[in-house]
Each structure stands twice: as C-alpha cells, then as structure tokens.
C-alpha cells in the first residue's frame, strides 16, 4: 500500500495530476470508501486492502469534468469498465492517469458470517494471508480468505489490466469456480421453476437503485426510470414491476456492454444475485457471436451493435 501512496504523492507534488481517486480509510478496516484526494497530506488517509472492492471507473465520468488530470487506481477488472466507458465516449482518456494496481481478490464483510466483527487481520495488501483472523465482540474466529471473497473474484477475468499508464503491485490467481455454472443451473430449470426462482429473489428488491447507480454501464445522464415526464418512473409499483420488469430491462440495456464487474451484486442490500442476468446475456452472446469480453479492447466490433449478413438471428423462426 505504501508504494501506492508514495507514487501518488509524487505525481501530485510534481503537478502531473490535480487529484487522486482512490480509497479512504473508514472507521473500520472493512469500510474504506471511494475518495478524491487533493493534497499530499490527505493521502495519509489513503488505504488499499482486501476490502477495496469498489470499482472506481465510473467516478471518472465526473472526474473528467474537473480541471486537470485525475490519477485513478484501477484493479484489473475495473480497467475493463474504464475501457468500456472510453469506448462509449463517457470518459476522457487525456484527463486520466491510470495506475493499474495489483489485486489478490476482494472481500465482502457480508461474507464473513460472524456477529460483532471488530477487526479483520490478514486482508492487508500486498501481504494478504490465506486465513483471515476475525476479532469479534464474542470471541476470535478464523475464515479462509477465499471464503470471504466477492463472487466475481472466484471467476476473475485475469491478472492483466487492459488500460493503464503504469502498473504497481502483483496480482494473484483467485479463480476456483466456473463463471457460467450458476447460469447453466438456472437454464436447466423448467419455466415454472425459473419463474419461482426469480420471483423469490426479486421480490426482495426495494428499488433503492444501488445496482443501477453503481453500474459503470448505466451511465445515461438521465435514466428512463428517473423520468418524471411520464409513467416510466414506476416508483410506486413496488412489487410486480421489480419482479417482472426493472431488472430485466436493465439487463437488456447493458447487454453487450456489461463487463461482468459484479458491482450490482456487491452493493445489493438484499443480496440479490443480479449479475446472473448479465451473465446469461454474456453466455448467449458468446454462443451466438463468438467469445466476447466487453471492455477488453477498443477496436473489436461489439456483437450487438455490429451487423453482418452471417449474424445469428436467435429471435427468428421461433414462431
């Protein structure tokens, strides 16, 4: 972590960047928050540990409107989101200095199943331990690092950054699950089982919009679901709409652009596995148009916005 602070201070003091976008120490080590640092002194509160899961790429839309360059720390998976935003002309590459930072898998405090957690040791970067020691109000516990990892890290896209100005720190291989296993499990369900499954999950939705607001692919200046001009807002319709429409519409809208960063599922207060919708689209796109990873490069034609006469037309012929 120290090397990140040293480098950030250097760039700030040299005037090469006007501010730093990173993570700030919270009240506990597991509640670091995304933050802009404007001065070298303020960087003393900079933190980078296993709990810095927040993907900072979307904050670069706003940062791009400010004077001067912003130094941003991007983890390998965050760099896909940034690249996708670049492709959509939502961020200004000229106004970003990107340090690709190493990642050894990110943790979620909600995955540590102990009451009264006071302190988690072993999440420090780069010296992350295989076993986390968790001090609680009710005694000391241990849990393997991997068991406390975010779902997305179990199916990590890889250790390489797709966009950066310089790299700092090592990454670890965290993959121990098949990315599409859960999608396949659901595909095998009968229509009735599928409906029951999604209804049970989505009935928990409280329409807080956290999934949408954190999503780097949801970068419309004005979302149709915030429009007061006509009934699309659907604020009052709290059950049937969420269960049947909101999340499906959102998944359609980000299809082909979603990098599978997993932020939607990370932030959902009700623990809804929202990434599964997006991953179903990704799986189908791979099957119909060839392997495609949104955000991986700026040139490759996007499957859902490029037409060729040999395109599969899955909607045709179903009667």
């Amino acid at each position: 972590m120290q090397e990140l602070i040293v480098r950030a201070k250097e760039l700030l003091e040299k005037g090469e960047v006007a501010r730093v976008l990173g993570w700030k120490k919270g009240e506990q080590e597991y509640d670091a928050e995304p933050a802009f640092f404007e001065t070298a002194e303020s960087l003393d509160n900079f933190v980078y540990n296993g709990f810095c899961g927040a993907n900072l790429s979307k904050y670069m839309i706003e940062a791009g409107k400010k004077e001067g360059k912003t130094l941003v720390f991007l983890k390998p998976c965050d760099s896909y989101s940034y690249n996708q935003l670049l492709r959509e002309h939502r961020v200004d590459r000229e106004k970003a200095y990107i340090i690709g930072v190493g990642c050894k898998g990110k943790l979620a405090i909600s995955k540590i199943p102990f009451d009264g957690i006071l302190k988690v040791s072993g999440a420090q970067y780069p010296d992350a331990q295989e076993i986390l020691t968790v001090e609680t109000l009710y005694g000391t516990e241990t849990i393997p690092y991997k068991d406390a990892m975010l779902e997305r890290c179990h199916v990590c896209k890889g250790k390489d950054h797709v966009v950066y100005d310089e790299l700092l720190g090592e990454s670890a291989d965290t993959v121990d699950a098949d990315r599409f296993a859960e999608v396949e499990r659901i595909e095998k369900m009968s229509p009735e089982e599928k409906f029951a499954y999604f209804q049970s999950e989505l009935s928990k939705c409280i329409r807080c919009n956290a999934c949408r607001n954190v999503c780097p692919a949801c970068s419309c200046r004005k979302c149709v679901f915030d429009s007061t001009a006509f009934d699309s807002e659907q604020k009052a319709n709290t059950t049937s709409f969420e269960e049947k429409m909101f999340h499906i519409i959102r998944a359609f809208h980000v299809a082909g652009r979603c990098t599978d960063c997993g932020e939607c599922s990370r932030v959902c207060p009700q623990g809804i596995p929202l990434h599964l919708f997006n991953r179903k689209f990704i799986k189908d796109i791979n099957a119909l148009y060839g392997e495609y990873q949104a955000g991986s490069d700026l040139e490759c034609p996007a499957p859902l916005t490029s037409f060729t006469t040999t395109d599969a037309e899955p909607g045709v012929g179903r009667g």
Partner: protein
Amino acid sequence: MYKISKENLNALYAAIAGGNDLFLPVKNAGQTNFGLWTESADVDIDTLKTVKSAKDIFFPQSESLYQVRRQDGKLEIQGEALREKPFVVFGIRGCDVKGMEVLDKVFLSDPVDGYYAARRQMGTIVSLACGRPETSCFCKVFGVDCAEPAGDVVTWLVGDTLYWEAKTKKGEALTEKLGNLLEKADTADVEKEKEKIHAIVERLPYSNLSLEKWGAAAADQNFDSPLWEQLYSPCLACGTCTFVCPTCQCYDIKDYTTSSGVQRYRCWDSCMYSDFTMMAHGNNRTSQMQRFRQRFMHKLAYFPANNNGMFSCVGCGRCVDKCPSHLNIVKVIKAFEKEGQ
C-alpha cells in the same frame, strides 16, 4: 413475567395469528425481512437486524390512497379502507420501536395521517431484546436500551427460553389470549441477560458518539460547513440508506391512469433522488451534495428543531451496514466532532 420454550414458538405464533395477522422476521432467499406468518414461513428471530425495518407494516413502501372511476359521465371517488383487522408485530428490536416513536411524531401530529393512525391503533408491538448487538449498532447514543426495548410486550430470548412481559393494556390483552401457552417465570434469568447485554453495549465502537454538535442549533451552524463537500463525494445517489432506515418517512404521491380512471398511490421517496420534492419550478436541491446534506441535517438538526430536541436517528446501524460506498451517519457525526478540535 411469563416464559415459553423456543421449541414451542410455532404454537405461540399460531395462537397469536388466530384472529390477528402476525408479522415477524421471515427468511426469504437468504435474507430476513418482516413478513406475514404462515405455517410454512421460515421464521428467523436469531438474525439481529432485518434488512428493512418493520416500518413498512405501518407505512408501506407503496399504498393506494384512492381510486377515481368514470361511470356514466360521472366521477366516483373511492377511498381505500382504513385498517380494521388487528395485527401483531413480533420480534421488533428496541431501535425500531423507537423508530415508531419518530414516525408517530410525523404521522400522528395534526393533520393526522388516517392510514397510519389506523394501523397504529390496530397493531400490537411485541419487541425483542438484542442478545447479541452488532458492531454497527449505536442505539445507546439515542437513548435506546436494547436490553429493555419499549413495546406493548417485551420479550427476551435467553438460551432456549423466550421470556415475555406485557407492558401495556394491548400487551395484557394479547397475553391473556395466549392462555396456558405461557407459563409463569421469575425474572432472575432476564436480569442476568440485561446485565450481559449492557456490558456488550459498552464495548460497541460507536456507543459513545457525541451529539454535542447536533440538535436544533446545528440547523444554522452546520449547514454551510465545508465538510459536506468532502463527505458526500462517494455518494452514488441511490436510496439504500433511506429505504432500510426505520425513521425515514418522506413519500411521494402519484396518480396512475388506469383503464377506467385514476389511481392515486403514495410511495416511499428518498432525498437522495434527483426528483425528490420536484415541483413546477424545478427542484430546490440541485446537487448531490445538497441532497446528501439534507438527509443528515433532517435527522440531526431539523427534526430535533421541530420536535423538542428528539433526533430522528435511532442508531440501528442499517445504513452503516448497507451503504454501497460505506458512507453513513456515524462518519458524518465523527467528522463534525473532529472539526471543532
């Protein structure tokens, strides 16, 4: 005081549910929220905090207020019936009971909200003491004793026994109805439990937050603080904090066109949203910093200014647990506390 063993709780729920609707913490798809009891419900009174509070039993996230129908060239207005069926909320924690007090100030003050008032009148609250408070809890700061919550009936889960004590007439009536399901108990175990809980509360990291910088006077003092600009910046402008909060009470009212008329709804709103309090002239809060500030100023300055010093945060800590960016009222209180030093 009475008691019942934990393994007989299903019989207790069934008895309460006879003639009443019974709402209690129910697990669905891995998460615990208040829901209607049925024989097949996966009741979960061990989870300390439901994701949402019990607020929406009294103040639903969405409710119809009235319908207007067009018939034979005339308009017919039909109001929604007020709640007439009694119900019981079981397992509500001390912070959330205090949250009801806050809501009462808003909805039961003149002009009284009839929908809410009817539910309050029909509802009996059975609270549950917190055997294992969480790191994010800070109810003590707002004068809540989680070892002895308010309510019509207070219960304590000690080991495999639930202790039961009626505190009001409503509570006594409910207790009477349960007849011999409950057996008489002495208070020794409960007293010991309370001591144990108090000792844990003392060890909670946020139990001793200072509210010195807050209260009615803060409305002027803190409004223009440069701290807001620093505090708000990671805010995603989602409504998680407001929707999991037991005291956030702002709502929107909307009309929907149906095939034969209009339906008027009211639904929870969030001061974090860009269209909050949108009026014909536009919005009086135009930046996210202003919206963010509004939420904390409302809880810690404006509400006490209008309600004899009563804060409208109860320290349940749900926003602490659930904010996607790890912003919360604790960080706000602490930032202002440090500012003056």
